[in-house]
């Protein structure tokens, strides 16, 4: 068993960390956080400097962890322009790949993935946005909620209902929708607790004409495509959690040391540091194990969901503890932002509750743990 990352990944991690430390300036972080500003210039730089190397998923994972250890909000903003591309890669037709994926891969277009609706996000099969066949098109009507990149994305992978089946999820299909189309409106949602550099919006679809060739894969298979996507993206959310936890622990230790040896030697402070670091290590092992299965084309949804919820909870645990042991200095440092950013990890791309249900249902089906 080999626990050390290959040298090329260690070097890649360093490259990304150096990039984040240089580009995530205090001024940029604060501007984005205060004004809920999306850092378009940073997105372009991240692309131009090859920071997200999609030819190697390990690099993506390590890159996300490193970026988020400096600042989750900017880290996510810089890496989500590609949100949803895996659906196109795995299930898109040649037409979709050539027309859309190529643009996104060249850094010329931004993507988003729209599943959640005002009425619910956990119950994916309960969604009500409809896509009704109409000659050469589908007519799409409905609304989506909390959609990342909502007002800045050019293209969305959008899940809609194409038929009413006895099993609700059999009636769902995925589409590639362009934001420039008539009937498509995006309203920016302001006032998020954290990840304020990311753009979040409500989408309204009013008789949007979606050409039939923009159906992704087969009609009625959309639910499966999205679940397959989540089994990939949840690994990257876990990586966001690892980054936040690492950044919080490092900052907390810096403050604890600055408070003097008399403070750093308090055993309760030392216990808190041990507990945070242990959880991070456990979360990382779990995430890397789930990633190993996935990247070897043998995804293990149980491990993926374990990693996603555990890394998210670890990020929240570590940011809370970090604040607790750093007192006023912590309140008055980037730790407060780390904490606000961390909480979203327990909500997006499957809440912790939903992840736990996935884990338990899979395990009960198998009847044993490994």
């Amino acid at each position, binding site marked *: 068993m080999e626990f050390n990352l290959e040298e090329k990944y260690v070097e890649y991690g360093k490259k990304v960390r150096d990039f984040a430390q240089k580009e995530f300036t205090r001024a940029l972080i*604060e501007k984005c*956080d*205060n004004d809920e500003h999306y850092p378009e210039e940073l997105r372009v730089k991240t692309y131009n400097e090859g920071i997200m190397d999609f030819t190697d998923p390990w690099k993506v994972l390590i890159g996300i962890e490193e970026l988020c250890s400096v600042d989750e909000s900017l880290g996510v903003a810089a890496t989500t322009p590609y949100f949803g591309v895996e659906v196109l890669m795995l299930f898109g037709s040649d037409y979709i790949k050539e027309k859309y994926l190529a643009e996104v891969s060249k850094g010329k277009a931004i993507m988003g993935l729209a599943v*959640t609706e005002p*009425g*619910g*996000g*956990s*119950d994916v099969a*309960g969604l009500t946005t409809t896509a009704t066949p109409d000659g050469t098109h589908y007519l799409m009507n409905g609304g989506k*909620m*909390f959609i990342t990149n909502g007002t800045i994305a050019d293209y969305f992978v959008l899940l809609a209902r194409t038929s009413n089946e006895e099993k609700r999820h059999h009636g769902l299909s995925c589409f590639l929708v362009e934001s420039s189309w008539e009937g498509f409106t995006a309203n920016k*949602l302001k*006032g*998020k*607790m*954290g990840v304020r550099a990311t753009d979040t919006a409500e989408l309204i679809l009013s008789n949007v004409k979606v050409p039939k060739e923009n159906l992704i894969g087969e009609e009625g298979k959309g639910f499966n495509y999205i679940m397959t996507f989540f089994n990939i993206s949840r690994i990257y959310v876990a990586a966001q959690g690892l980054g936040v936890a690492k950044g919080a622990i490092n900052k907390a230790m810096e*403050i604890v040391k*600055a*408070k*003097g040896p*008399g*403070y750093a*030697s*308090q*055993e*309760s*402070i030392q216990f808190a540091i041990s507990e945070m670091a242990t959880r991070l290590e456990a979360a990382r092992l779990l995430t890397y194990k789930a990633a190993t299965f996935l990247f070897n084309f043998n995804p293990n949804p149980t491990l993926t969901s374990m990693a996603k919820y555990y890394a998210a909870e670890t990020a*929240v645990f570590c940011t*809370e503890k970090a*604040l*607790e*042991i*750093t*007192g*006023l*200095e*912590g*309140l*008055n440092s980037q730790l*407060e*932002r780390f*904490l*606000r950013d961390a*909480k*979203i990890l*327990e*909500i*997006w791309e499957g*809440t*912790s*509750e939903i992840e*736990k249900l996935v884990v338990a249902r899979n395990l009960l089906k198998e009847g044993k743990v490994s």
Partner: protein
Amino acid sequence: MSNEETELIRSSLDDFLSRELYGNETEIERTGISSEFLGKLSQQGFLAAIVPAELGGSGLDNTSYRAILMELARYSGSVALRVLLLNSLVYRILKKMGKESMLGDVLSGKLAISIDTSMFSSFAAAGSEKFFIDPGAPVSLLMNNNELVLASVKVGKAGSYRQLGFRGIPFGNPEFTTIEKIAGVSDTRKFMDELIPEISPEIASIAIGMAEASIDKAREYSKVRKAFGTSLSSFQPLAFPLAILSTQLKSLSEFLMSPAERTDTDKLGIKELATEFAIVASKQSLQTHGGYGYIEDFGIEKFYRDSLALNSLFGERVHSLRLLAKSYYGEEAGNL
């Protein structure tokens, strides 16, 4: 004061707050507490709640005061903290300094006093930035060479922070161009260590008020919001924690509202329990609200932020735990 009397205070206060504050809580977080609303709080006697009547205050007992803090915190942690700062801190410190003559102006909201939060810190990091409440005020309670002093100050730049919590109250890093000492507390450390147990149940009251509002909101939401064709309240991972939290809340609240004289151990202990509880309860409420819980306009996430800020605002937790252990053992304990 009996339970019925406390309930009476809380329900009449609730009437006032639902009239004057309900619906404006988010605005307070964005733009601060207006002087008009401060005036109303002053008229109600809240700003001088524990100040004796002969000094122009309301002369309320501890239980009534805690009930007020709790009720205010249900709506706005910022408003509750403002009332706590004036009563629990400024009043007690000015009294200690023999400066009661200033109370009239301060407690009516006419004279603002900035507060150097490092007075609570026992392990301040060398060279760390200052963290003042109301940094632009012309008078300040600040730490000067380990002494707590009252000073008349001229502020060059008040500075400001994007705060984790209590955003209705300004925090900043003021640059003082002049500091003229008016009075001081000679044995500051000892005074602060005696003040901490006094103020602890009051901090706990704010924590409990915020926890109560969080739990109530989560309960309401989980009854009306549906997922998988049923209300969220059907799901054990949401319903069980909320039900347990509500029982914990009741016991903590009854402990706080009891007129029984409490030892320092109990006072310090209830603060630890209540502040930690508020974090757990507000986090559970946020989670129950899903994505909506993460958006400021829904008024849920602020309780989580405020609870965490409350946990750090009054000094290092390890220091109050050391005071707690010492009080519990009756001798130096928990010091390593």
